[in-house]
């Protein structure tokens, strides 16, 4: 659960079209919503991508953010999954200074985090760690005294546990395929 506090996790299924990221980012900026992390990538469906946002703000903000996202034509589905049972992960690459004296200590330290050493150089190594933001922060804190040369973090990706897909609040979506709505000709400026 991460709906408490000020962080909310929103996932969206979007069409892979040029400019979709600009639309989303522009919307957040324009309406004064704060994105603390954003991750985008292909989904299991061709032509569609998934985005995970972590949005800072109160319930009003996240409610508006979700609805405004839903209004974007290229956004197919949005769900605020903050109150669902979710799995969420971030990944970080940490390049840390090493000397022959500190190498062993660092390796030991990294072990309980189930982090991997993905590159070893003469004076540095790169550690890959996956998990919650807190876990990454904790490892970073331990490595800092050795001298962190570079930190690269992804945004959070999240998924609802079990069978359910991220539930789209039903009252927002009514199935409609563009048929049978009034067109130009059907419009008449009626009287009372």
């Amino acid at each position, binding site marked *: 659960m991460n709906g408490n506090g000020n962080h909310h996790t929103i996932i969206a299924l979007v069409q892979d079209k040029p400019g979709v990221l600009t*639309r989303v980012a522009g919307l957040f900026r324009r309406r004064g919503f704060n994105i603390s992390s954003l991750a985008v990538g292909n989904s299991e469906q061709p032509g569609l991508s998934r985005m995970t946002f972590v949005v800072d703000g109160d319930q*009003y903000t996240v409610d508006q953010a979700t609805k405004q996202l*839903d209004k974007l034509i290229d956004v197919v589905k949005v769900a605020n999954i903050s109150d669902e049972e979710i799995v969420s992960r971030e990944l970080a690459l940490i390049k840390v200074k090493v000397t022959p004296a500190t190498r062993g200590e660092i390796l030991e330290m990294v072990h309980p985090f189930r982090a991997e050493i993905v590159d070893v150089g003469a004076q540095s190594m790169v550690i890959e760690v996956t998990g919650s933001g807190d876990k990454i922060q904790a490892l970073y804190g331990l490595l800092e005294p050795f001298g962190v040369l570079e930190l690269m973090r992804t945004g959070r990706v999240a998924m609802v546990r079990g069978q359910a897909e991220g539930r789209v609040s039903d009252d927002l979506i*009514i199935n409609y395929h*563009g048929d049978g*709505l009034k067109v*130009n000709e059907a419009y008449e400026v*009626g009287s*009372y």
Partner: protein
Amino acid sequence: MELTGAEIVCESLLKEGVEVIFGLPGGAVLPFYGALSGYPQLRHILVRHEQAAAMAADGYARATGKVGVCTATSGPGATNLATGIAGAMMDSVPMVAITGQVPRPAIGRDSFQETDITGITLPITKHNMLVLNVEDVAPAVKEAFHIARTGRPGPVLLDIPKDVLVGERWPFIWPDKVNLPGYNPPGEADAVQVSQACELINQAQRPVILAGHGILISHAYAELKELAEKAQIPVITTLLGIGSFPTGHLLHAGMPGMHGMAYASLAIDNADLLISLGMRFDDRVTGRLSDFAPNAKVVHVDVDPSEFHKNVRATVPVLGELKQVLGQMLPQVERKTHLDWLQHIDTLRAEHPSLHIRQTDELLPQYVLRQLSDITEGNAIIVTGVGQHQMWAAQHYAYKEPNTLLTSGGLGAMGFEVPAALGAKVGRPDKAVWSIAGDGGFQMTMCDLATAVENNIDVKFAILNNGTLGMVRQWQDFFYDKDYFATVYSGNPDFIKLAEAYGIPGIRVTDKTQVATSIRQAMATPGPVVLDFIVKQDEQVYPMIPAGESVNEMMEEPIPQRVM
């Protein structure tokens, strides 16, 4: 047969039932014009400034309910459209704007007249598309119109590079469906929401209906009238909702908000239920939110769920298309009389006669509008600019029919009065169309008098000429120690000579006694006419609730001036 992209645009416009396009050509869009000249069914109206093209398309759309279409070239042509597009966005007006773009290989190189118009218009369009392949043209046009007119309407911009318009050919295949999986405008409302809403309505002792633009957009006037009459609920129409309910109907209770009638704002203040239909609680309506309708529950019906709880918390939000929703609600709404409540509103009306015009020999702008209302019997289409004259036009003209007050509400764009009136008349040639202008706004778009002349568009242009940016002066008067800095227009042209220069009649009115005859004279003159009403300069719009304040801080016309 294979067609060019430009020809495909024309064929697609025909499929969409387009009759008229407002625009002005330039290099990048010229291939489209080249094709357009071969399609006489698509009437092109050449404007003098692209802002007028967008605003004329807007006026056409508001007057007819059809999608307004405008076009411009890349770069400056496209950016000139922007104000008009933004206005359509704010006021939910269906519009399709087509811009030419530099050829694909030139994109991204700061080429001559290249601007990223899809980037620029991202926040002021409902959607926009850069069309990069000739085979995408027809689907893009179909999607653009579909998005523009359905759900909560709005402007859609199509940016088409020159070489997509003319470089290749492709068979014209009109898609029978749009492929927009992310776009699902609601229709009927959820039955539970409807019954909860009706329960609140049936329990209410002091209900008011706030009727907004949504009623006009979804043509729900008959349903609104039935609802109001069945349950005897007073109807307050927002600025953009004016015309959704007949002015003068016994249940009509005026306009709310900053310059609304005092009795309307007080009725909201006293109400125990707001039934908000297709309106969005703009700050000009609500004033300070914490003091707005303090005793009321809120039933909010809208097609756009992001409006729920955005400004005012809805007790019961009802998502759906208004006409259908009201149709669902009507059978569940009980007949009521609300005698005490209606009597209370009548008392408010008597105690706060916001619309009385004081007796004076001076030429008051309000008087001009009242005369116009009487003489045209409330049957004209009134297109206003922004400022004092706009508020007086909203207050003093007795609108009888839907879509007869066209005004830039959300954006508040001066200069709307001239081009939007042209668009309205083109769309509704059967109606008398009056452009009500301030001398400030008129001068922003008066170059398009030429468009009226060239196309013989019979609009009467009435300038309420107070020699100043009146509404700003009013704020200076009330809130800036009468420091009339930068609001006096001392170098105005002679508008009668200006009319003459365009070859159309001009009538100057300086005296109250000439008002009626000049209006009749203009009506009897075929084609465009300019009327220059030299009105009293220091006249304030009352009532006024200062920005960010509440009904408790409402200023009404000073008592000595008020004649009952």
